[in-house]
């Protein structure tokens, strides 16, 4: 401790004495979890920011998948070597919110440095996901996606279905699945991110709570509410459809995605960020649509929620804080990301949602949505904006959510294998998930 203070003092002195040293731009370490081609596009944004000013230099580095990046950043913090900025997927939000002095909340960073970002310009569904219960912005939203449906228009035509209209309800989807199967399609439907699409998005779209206390936004003593009648109905349907050959479970995370562009599965529900790959690989006519809902559900369809990631500002370690120059550099970088041209370009290049209204306008003014190859690119945005945001559709904020997702996935797999009924699966998700929540509550109460 003493040595560190001494060193900090020496550095400060050197800064005062040597004007040459003062001109050296401070380095901002930035860890991200985007593989190619998205990672390259992100690093391009950073390069352009570095070229636009000379006070700081942001150094991006790829740290593996989202969960790997999260684990790496936390381990680095414990060792006193955390990056200034870390890209954290939405599932890690609950953990970061409760990280105490490990993070510098963005609203605090902005007020300390006097840099302004107009939060009203951000889509409410995006901003709200990363804001504290009192509305304070905790992290910087960046790449957000939502889940949508991709479907094979040629397969629809062959099955005698209308290729230009995807059913809006699950009842309609079931009829389409039967028609696709009857026309000889081996895999009428599959999904990627099974829990995100079939549990989390499903709950939001039907305006149903996934957990108490506004899906965990209201506090750490939240409890899962997965065994509700509608969730049960959906789980039962999926299990039965799997048995009948109408639906195919494609594995965890995005493992199932590959079966859509290959033409094997006719309907795929997955991230809106999947669009670029379909555009590149699919050798058939395809379309996109919003996620379906069950007929007659009150308040359905409500808005979908987001996935993707945001940027968190971290302290270096339990006793390593950030200098003023570093904080100012990070704040300026964030303000740069919120610029309409930067946010709009990111959206157009990648297929992620435009996170600001002005970014959306920028893309529109460039004629992006009018281009024939971009038909349907606005579907995810419309899905985010339909209905009025309620506490069930703002997002999900659970501690230990990474683990809870794994639990949901495991219990779903056991139900698909026929080892347990859908009722038992949902009950087990609840019990095991709540154990994780209690554990997290206990470990973080003091922190």
């Amino acid at each position, binding site marked *: 401790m003493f040595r560190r203070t001494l060193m900090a003092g020496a550095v400060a002195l050197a800064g005062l004495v040597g004007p040459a040293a003062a001109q050296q731009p401070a380095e901002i370490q930035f860890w991200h979890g985007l593989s190619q081609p998205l990672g390259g596009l992100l690093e391009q944004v950073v390069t352009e920011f570095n070229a636009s000013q000379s006070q700081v230099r942001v150094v991006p580095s790829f740290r593996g998948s989202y969960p790997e990046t999260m*684990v790496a950043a936390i381990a680095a913090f414990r060792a006193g070597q955390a990056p200034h900025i870390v890209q954290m997927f939405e599932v890690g939000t609950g953990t970061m919110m*409760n*990280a105490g002095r*490990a993070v510098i909340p963005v609203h605090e960073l902005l007020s300390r440095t006097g840099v302004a970002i107009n939060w009203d310009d951000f889509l409410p569904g995006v901003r709200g996901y990363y804001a504290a219960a009192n509305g304070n912005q905790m992290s910087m939203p960046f790449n957000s996606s939502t889940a949508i449906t991709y479907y094979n228009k040629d397969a629809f035509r062959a099955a005698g279905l209308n290729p230009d209209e995807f059913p809006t309800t699950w009842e309609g989807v079931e009829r389409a699945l039967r028609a696709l199967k009857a026309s000889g399609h081996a895999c009428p439907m599959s999904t990627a991110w099974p829990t995100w699409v079939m549990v989390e998005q499903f709950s939001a779209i039907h305006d149903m709570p996934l957990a108490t206390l506004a899906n965990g936004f209201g506090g750490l003593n939240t409890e899962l509410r997965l065994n509700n009648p509608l969730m049960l109905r959906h789980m039962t349907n999926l299990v039965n459809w799997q048995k009948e050959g109408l639906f195919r479970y494609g594995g965890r995370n995005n493992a199932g995605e*590959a079966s859509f562009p290959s033409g094997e599965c006719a309907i795929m529900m997955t991230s809106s960020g999947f669009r670029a790959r379909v555009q590149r690989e699919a050798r058939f006519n395809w379309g996109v649509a919003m996620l379906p809902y069950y007929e007659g559900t009150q308040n359905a369809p409500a808005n979908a929620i987001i996935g993707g990631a945001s940027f968190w500002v971290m302290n270096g370690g339990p006793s390593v804080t950030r200098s003023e120059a570093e904080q100012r550099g990070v704040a300026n970088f964030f303000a740069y990301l919120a610029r309409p041209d930067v946010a709009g370009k990111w959206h157009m290049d990648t297929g992620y949602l435009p996170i600001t209204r002005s970014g959306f306008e920028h893309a529109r003014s460039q004629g992006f949505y009018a281009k024939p190859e971009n038909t349907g690119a606005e579907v995810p945005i419309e899905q985010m904006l339909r209905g009025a945001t309620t506490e069930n559709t703002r997002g999900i904020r659970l501690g230990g959510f990474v683990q809870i997702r794994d639990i949901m996935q495991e219990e779903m797999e056991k139900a698909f294998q026929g*080892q347990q009924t859908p009722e038992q699966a949902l009950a087990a998700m609840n019990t095991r998930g709540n154990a*994780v929540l209690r554990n997290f509550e206990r470990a973080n109460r003091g922190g």
Partner: protein
Amino acid sequence: MRKKVIFKGIALPWLLLLPQLLITGVFFFWPAGQAIYGSFLREDAFGLSRQFVGFENFAEVLADPNYLASGWTTVVFSFSVAFTALSAALFLAVQADKAIRGANGYKTLLIWPYAVAPAIAAVLWLFMFHPQIGLFGRMLNGLGIGWDYRLNGDQAMLLVILAAAWKQVSYNFIFFMAGLQSIPKAVLEAAAIDGARPMRRFWTIIFPLLAPTSFFLLVVNIVYAFFDTFGIIHALTNGGPGQATTTLIYKVYVDGVQNLNFGSSAAQSVILMVIVILLTAVQFRFVERKVHY
């Protein structure tokens, strides 16, 4: 009668022992001590608050039905891997020991898989048995066998056992080859002259004389299945579907590295350490007695 070597003074023997002691201390005792210490604590992910909780982590782990299930999974997995790898290697070694054309070529090919990294081995098997892109996976589905190891726990288990055993066959093969070569030819020839057929010669002469090698390999294989198969499971099944292929070591990783639940993870590794110490002690005490060196 043991020969005793006496050093003059104490400095030289300690100096000679030092490298080994250092390695054992730094790479074994220190981390083991850390694990024991960590198993009594409960901390948040960032290490900002910690609390001494006594044996609570152990009590929680041992009361968790998923932990007990993964213990059973480990037993099934380890014994299947050891049995499969040992019997396949023994069969191949006996065949390669015969005077056949190109025996050296076969030997080299059989030893190769040992040089393959676990994750790569797993990917090779994935490319063979993936239900959509794998050659055999598609063939099985084409034959009307519903093959999908991503959903069928038994199939997933079978696949990781095969992949893990395949990798260990080479190692066992080398030791069995050496063992076979040290069996005196005169004994086998005498038995042949007395009219013993090859099968009988194998079971009454070769197999008992190989017992020391087999015993050593049994210990090594079980330890391998317990600790070294992480890469294969991680790359092939991620411990799924459900928790069908989550072995104890994989669970330590999931709870510690993925779920950042350090206390529970540390408690699990301490339990694992105790299991392996017991297992080895039992093997040496009871199994070794029946082995003739």
